[in-house]
């Protein structure tokens, strides 16, 4: 079916930002324009969980993945803001990404 083919290649573009020291893991760049498939390999809409894996696989050049992901989930102590709102209000990893979303990862783990 044509629509299935279109869906399989459909992409969404979002903005991903890192702060609180996390930018160090992402080539010292705070703001990244990220394009990723609208649906994951199982045909489900791409979520924050999918984004986290995508960032690890395609965006992060640093080898210290454990500073961002632990046991397959975002490292505790890293906050996520989805369009400036606490991700805990948006379903956390389950949140389904929409085009032009702004996702901010902030580390609380650095010295103050």
């Amino acid at each position, binding site marked *: 079916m044509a629509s299935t083919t279109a869906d399989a290649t459909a992409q969404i573009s979002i903005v991903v930002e890192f*702060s*609180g*020291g996390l930018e*160090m893991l992402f080539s010292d760049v705070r703001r990244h324009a990220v394009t990723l498939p609208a649906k994951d390999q199982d045909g489900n809409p791409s979520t924050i969980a999918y984004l986290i894996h995508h960032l690890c696989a395609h965006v992060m050049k640093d080898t210290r993945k454990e*500073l961002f992901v632990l046991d397959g989930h975002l*490292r*505790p*102590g890293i*906050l996520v*803001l989805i369009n*400036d*709102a*606490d991700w*805990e*209000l*948006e*379903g956390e990893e389950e*949140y389904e990404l929409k085009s032009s979303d702004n996702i*901010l990862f*902030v*580390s*609380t*783990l*650095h*010295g*103050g």
Partner: protein
Amino acid sequence: MPPTTCVRCQTNKAVVKRPKNHHKLCRDCFIAVFEDEVHHTIVSSKLFYRGEKVAIGASGGKDSTVLASVLKTLNERHDYGLDLVLLSIDEGIKGYRDDSLETVKRNAVQYDMPLKIVGYDELYGWTMDQVVETIGKKGNCTYCGVFRRQALDRGAKTLEIKHVVTGHNADDVAETVLMNLLRGDLPRLSRSTSIVTGGSLNDVKRSKPLKYAYEKEIVLYAHHKKLDYFSTECIYSPEAFRGTARSLIKNLEKVRPSAILDIVRSGEDMARLTPDKGQGACACDEGEGMGGCGSADAKTSGNDLAQMEASLKEKPTANGLETEITSNATPKVIDSDDVVKLPIRQRRSKEPGPVQLQTLGKCVKCGYMSSQAMCQACTLLEGLNKNRPEISIEG
């Protein structure tokens, strides 16, 4: 998910979920509530008096930047009548402090506060870069921690200020409580939970106005108020990220967000059970430095000397309180190497006599307050100056 409405104003979209009580708040209500709670801490603990000159230990990091911003706001809003000054320590670490000091300089302009920077080189004749060159990376956090603690007090004294506030937050305090609990160090646990330490006659008083504020909320406050802060790891503690107590705290928070404040409260309650009822707070024993090291690891190693000193001091007390029955008196039942014998502790049958507490004197070398003949900084410096990295402190 439909947008959640703020529980406080019932109007705006909630953007923060508070870890302590799960309240969902909009940006403005969150900022107002956060500031109100710090105000409440300040008032209920009687942290300041009108006209007091207060130095804010400023590292350029999130905690001290939020502290400076909130104190400025509250000082104006509630007319505390405080004279606020930013006090920064330059450890002399190239590529680390340089950038964060630039942040502090900008903060001084943004908050319209005078700024004093005290360098390790002028205070001790050694920058941390030079210390590391001499002793290597291992153990350098001990030096940095000991030097920093005095540096803040000395800097405050040169400004004729007797009160230094630091940005320690609830997560930091919970972390310290856990570490002392894991070490079985109740006296230290007691001191680490006090909101105010020091302050007797000549020395400089220390306090932590953000003691009950969650790190998460501090970061969100900085974000929503668009505060200018700097975050980096100290280049000499790359293992810092693995701070065990810190990870434990963050994992607990994930499962049960109220755990952090619960640990702080448990620490306070346990402090009341110690021989001096948690009153023996003394600045020289305060564990952590001013956010210089971003990690539990660094803090732990920075504590080693103080710990050693504290445990040496506490020993007579411990012996006075309890009697240990050695295994010699117990008939052997199982003769196996892998059975670990536990010491049997006898409950004390009568009230203990007066408990020996640490007494503060002055360092014979620099005159700075110290519970030993020579203060920790001078002891370390003597070793450094002899180019001898391995130093043991004698009780």
